[in-house]
């Protein structure tokens, strides 16, 4: 029973990683860049949602708001976070990354790091360095087996949201015209352009989707561990990036699988091995997997043509 609760915890944490990893993997697949600022977009999403709910609680809702009104306020705050993050993603891409489309990988990487510094420090100036206590989007827990197994509603919600996003994205990239354009760009940008695909617009769209997902991930992450500060996004960002590589960067099912496995490994390592060394276990598993499968679990291995 104990094992089951750790497992559920791991799946829920893994679902958050998976949602963030999807953002990394889509951007990597299309723009071939490591967007190190992605983790900080999560943090921005968290703050927007935090201030929106606080504002609603203070001004719009009464002293004893009805369940419906609270739900509406929460949903609106998440929606607002998504809109803000989407806009932020498009702005970052347009201002910082687009001018470097022809530049080397490292130049883009360093710029992304600059953007990450910028977001963290701007957040510190705007919102303060002191951690904020985030109110989870849903509270309470499900009690099963006469109290032996407790599952928080947040964990359930996270898993459901992750599955919905996963299915949605698969359908989108498979069937939709924009989705096909994305896949074309990720195969060969030059050829896609010659086929009349607007590469810049497609890349913008990818950043928009990735950032909107980051906002959702931000809200879920802050509900999972309700402390919000300017560096909140860094470590989950790095781990989600690891998850994306783990599953095979550029692959959407890979990001999902990688995120989920990483969450489970982390939860299990914390429970059964060592809290201090849980990251060590996690990274060690990553190293071993990459040595056996150099392109990740579901990545395509393309040997260089001679």
């Amino acid at each position, binding site marked *: 029973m104990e094992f089951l609760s750790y497992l559920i915890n791991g799946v829920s944490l893994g679902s958050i990683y998976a949602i963030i990893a999807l953002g990394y993997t889509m951007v990597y697949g299309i723009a071939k860049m490591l967007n190190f600022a992605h983790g900080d977009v999560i943090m921005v999403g968290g703050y927007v949602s935090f201030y929106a709910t606080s504002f609603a609680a203070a001004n719009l809702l009464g002293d004893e708001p009805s369940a419906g009104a609270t739900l509406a306020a929460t949903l609106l705050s998440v929606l607002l976070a998504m809109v803000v993050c989407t806009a932020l993603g498009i702005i970052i891409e347009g201002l910082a990354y687009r001018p470097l489309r022809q530049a080397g990988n490292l*130049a883009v990487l360093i710029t992304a790091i600059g953007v990450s*510094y910028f977001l963290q420090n701007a957040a510190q*100036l705007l919102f303060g360095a002191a951690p904020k206590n985030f109110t989870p989007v849903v509270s309470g827990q499900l009690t099963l087996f006469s109290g032996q197994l407790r599952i928080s509603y947040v964990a359930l919600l996270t898993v459901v949201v992750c599955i919905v996003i996963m299915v949605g994205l698969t359908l989108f990239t498979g069937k939709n015209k924009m989705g096909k354009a994305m896949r074309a760009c990720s195969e060969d940008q030059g050829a896609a352009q010659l086929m009349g695909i607007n590469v810049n617009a497609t890349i913008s769209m990818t950043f928009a989707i990735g950032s909107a997902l980051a906002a959702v991930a931000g809200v879920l992450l802050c509900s999972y561990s309700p402390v919000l500060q300017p560096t909140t996004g860094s470590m989950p960002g790095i781990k989600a990036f690891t998850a994306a590589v783990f599953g095979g960067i550029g692959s959407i099912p890979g990001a999902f699988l990688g995120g989920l496995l990483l969450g489970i490994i982390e939860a299990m390592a914390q429970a059964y091995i060592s809290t*201090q*060394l849980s990251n060590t276990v996690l990274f060690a598993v990553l190293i071993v997997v990459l040595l056996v499968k150099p392109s990740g679990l579901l990545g395509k291995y393309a040997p260089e043509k001679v």
Partner: protein
Amino acid sequence: MKNYFKGMKAVTKMDYATYAGVILAFVIVSLCQSFGLLNRSVSGMLVPICAYVCMALSLNLTVGVLGELSLGHAGFMSVGAFTGIITSMSLSTTVPNELARVVLALVVGMIFAAITGVIVGVPVLRLRGDYLAIVTLAFGEIIKDIINCLLVGWDENGLHIALNIDGTKSIASLGLSENGIEIIKGAQGASGNDRIATFTVGFVLVLITLVVVLNLVRSRTGRAVMAIRDNRIAAESVGINVTKYKLMAFVTSAALAGAAGALFGLNYSSVSAVQFDFNTSILVLVYVVLGGLGNMWGSIIATVVLYVLPEALRSFSDYRMLAYAIVLILVMLATNNDQLKGLLAKVIPVRKKGDAIDG
């Protein structure tokens, strides 16, 4: 004399100019220091600057010369720092001479970082591109976590080492005798260290690092490494053992980072593992990329400027890190976007870059 310089290749001239620049900078700073022209905050920055210059030079060997992106270079610095501190603290009675102790600590730090370099390099160098980068990141984090759990003490019976895996052990579990020294106390790191690193030692280390890196690049070994960077398949076709030379460059780079770490560690009375995390690796990577890949002189300048910049921006107080981020983004855009570069070239007539720098 004039003819002698005329006969030299542009590459060699550039190397000598770099040495001359470093020595000149040392002389000027030392003079300023002896005349009391430097305030405390500037004097305090001298040794860390030297350490970061060495870090940038050594990372440039991996990223610029070998052409592999490493995101875990601070891990080697960490290994060097802590083994250096352990050496210095355990030898404090046996080797009372501070200079001798610093040198010993640097050598030990270098050796241990080199060993770590072999352990990390053998698996890592089999991977390519971004996969290699993420695994170096992973190793950097693993090193940080392990040192965070490390308990080390010294008494007349020798070194006592324990790993605090489940969070139940403390420095007391080492069972040190009465006059034992507690050296590393898990997550708190090492504190109460002797601050024995000096600017002169730092300068000498910079010079040694520079000689190692530049001479390596201009040798048969360096050419093999750069051949692998430029075209792995062609390098194999002319009989270059790719794995061997990749590992050589990587381990040399790790060893130099270890020495830099030891220098850094011996400059502070307390040091903890979180100081050498992913962000430190990134910081050094920024120095290297802004200075120019494979350009050692550029790495030195970029490190000094970017290390001093946040201090110089102090008047902006809270906004200084924000300003730093903006400067970073703008510099990257200005140096890498063709239109902006063209615009800049019109404003500032830049000397055309020869092949001298691309070492």
